[in-house]
């Protein structure tokens, strides 16, 4: 199954099977967290699984990803992350020191993200039945006042912001696998994006139309999902895309597109033109948001597509990937 990489295949699985059967809907846009009303109280709830190889890499490990990933899904749905529960599926034979390290990493990440882990479950499976350790985190949050996420409210002229440089996480992982024999001073960007979102919302809540964290499948996948959900076109400006040199170098060497590479500490936001300046300013002043930029604008055509434009007037469509981005030599 090519379904794990977060591109077209994943989306098809969710839309074609899970949504209609489990959620009883396949027509509403899918969001990063669900809003539910319980006895009048509004909460947001989301869940995510974490499978990564290698489990530890420069800048983080699976434990951190498991906390930050779910925290970020809540944050981009316009909620303050509050509590998590966590499940582990552990392959028999995993060393206790590795497990301990991951549990500590989770605790530290939860503390940094200011969320409480209140429970969990563990299962151990036979050796060979899991790739060392899989984690799932389920998170609950409370809605941020004044923030409404609705792709249908997006209009031509709206701008797309990104909180920081693209591709650090995915390239770090690729290099950490060691198969390509490449070395670079790169770290995963895994972190909670909530402080940045909170700062941006304080300055520009009425202007925020949509947010997403571009994880597997990269910025291209998130923006293609958006384009489909809102029916508009997203025009990216190539010269405005923030990318660290080493990510760029690795992508050029391997024939990869940074737009398809996973991020674990960034978010995208669509903001109305009246609020984009204050949103960007607030973001850039927030801790960790210094490299935030406007990278695209919403237009009408080509509908439901994402386009990258260059300063000299060239353009190309950027689609979602089918599976993982693969290095090429041709």
């Amino acid at each position, binding site marked *: 199954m090519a379904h794990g990489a977060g591109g077209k295949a994943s989306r098809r699985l969710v839309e074609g099977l899970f949504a209609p059967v489990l959620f009883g809907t396949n027509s509403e846009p899918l969001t990063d967290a669900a809003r539910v009303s319980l006895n009048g109280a509004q909460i947001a709830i989301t869940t995510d699984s974490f499978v990564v190889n290698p489990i530890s890499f420069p800048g983080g490990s699976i434990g951190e990803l498991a906390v930050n990933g779910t925290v970020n899904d809540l944050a981009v749905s316009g909620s303050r992350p509050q509590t998590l529960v966590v499940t582990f599926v552990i392959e028999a034979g995993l060393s206790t020191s590795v497990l301990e390290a991951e549990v500590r990493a989770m605790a530290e990440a939860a503390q940094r993200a200011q969320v409480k882990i209140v429970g969990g479950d563990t299962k151990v499976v036979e050796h060979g039945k899991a790739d060392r350790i899989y984690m799932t985190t389920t998170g609950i949050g409370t809605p941020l006042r004044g923030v409404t996420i609705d792709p249908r409210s997006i209009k031509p002229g709206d701008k797309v912001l990104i909180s920081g440089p693209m591709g650090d996480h995915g390239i770090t992982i690729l290099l950490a696998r060691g198969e390509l024999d490449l070395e670079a001073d790169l770290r995963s960007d895994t972190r909670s994006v909530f402080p940045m979102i909170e700062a941006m919302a304080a300055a520009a809540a009425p202007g925020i139309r949509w947010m997403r964290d571009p994880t597997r499948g990269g910025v291209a996948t998130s923006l293609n999902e958006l384009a489909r959900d809102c029916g508009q076109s997203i025009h990216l400006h190539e010269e405005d895309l923030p990318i660290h040199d080493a990510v760029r170098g690795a992508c050029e060497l391997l024939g990869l597109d940074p737009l398809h590479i996973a991020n674990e500490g960034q978010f995208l936001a669509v903001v109305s033109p009246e609020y984009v300046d204050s949103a960007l300013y607030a973001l850039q002043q927030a801790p960790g948001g210094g490299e935030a930029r406007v990278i695209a604008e919403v237009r009408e*055509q*080509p509908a439901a597509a994402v386009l990258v434009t260059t300063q000299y007037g060239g353009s190309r469509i950027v689609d979602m990937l089918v599976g993982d981005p693969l290095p090429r030599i041709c």
Partner: protein
Amino acid sequence: MKFVDEFRDAAVINKTAEEIRRLADPSRHYRFMEVCGGHTHAIYRFGLKDILPDNVELIHGPGCPVCVLPMGRIDDGLSLAKDPNVIFTAFGDMMRVPGTQGSPLEHKARGMDVRIVYSPSDALKLAQLNPDRHVMFFAIGFETTAPSTALTVLRARAEGVRNFSVFCNHVTIIPAIRAILDSPDMRLDAFIGPGHVSTVIGCRPYEWIAKDERKPIVVSGFEPLDILQAIVMILHQMRAGEAKVENQYKRVVPWEGNRAALKAMGEVFQLRPYFEWRGLGFISQSALRVRDTFDEWDTEQRFRVPGVRVADPKAAQCGEVLKGVLKPAQCKLFGKECTPEHPLGALMVSSEGSCAAYFNYEHRKAALTSLSWPA
């Protein structure tokens, strides 16, 4: 990035595009073929068609080694992966190319040991690290890549590595160009020559194109300014009524080629009498095989390879698109039965194949009614 960013300078690109507009005769329709898949990819990636005048048309040539590899050869290679003793290695480009039983990645999902390598030397290293397994390297590529495979075989011999072999599918560029020019429907004015193949073979092998076929050929680099400058040079030739071989990519391509690379290739490989090219049929003296003296490192000598032949669906018009006679969107299967996700023919299987590139980067732009560019 040095030697890259300069050649993507927007202001100079605009100037060069203007020069092309100045040089192109408005009463003519120019058809230039870029031979190499890497150029096809670059043209789409940089959106160069948007800045060329309408009467300068780029036709995508057959220089995509993944595209022209017959499905049967993929089946042959993968049949060996079924042996649990074998580690199947290949470039990333090969991983999603479908054989009749699925692609290498699909074989990996079914439990076979299939690994991506960036370099044939990484495959050799894998063999050294796994002395009890056999590492098979599925070698593809034109003359750009063949010398690296050759050198790796020489290193394997020098270091006494016996659990390593090459499944050789290297092809040569000149017969492909000849097949294009021999095609009766061919209507091309000039060629944008393959830049990286030329670092190995030099510029001399193209002289017959200029002399005998009377077509300009300019060997070009892969950055936007390289390709645009090559077009400027072609237009200058055409205005002067000339047809010659020129080297636009001087910073990298030596006119005489790379002797050490040619020597390594000559030592390890010999030409097959003929080889099947997907979409083009059998072409004589167009592909390489490992010489008998290196039997030990030739997958086809170490293992019994089925030798399967798989025909493309009759409705697929890959050959005509490969030769530039049809555009991708003109093939009846394009975008319907045949897409990058389920490719039926040669040109959809690789992201630099004409059909895949057009599908991925371009065809939805046709819906663009107006596109106002930043000033």
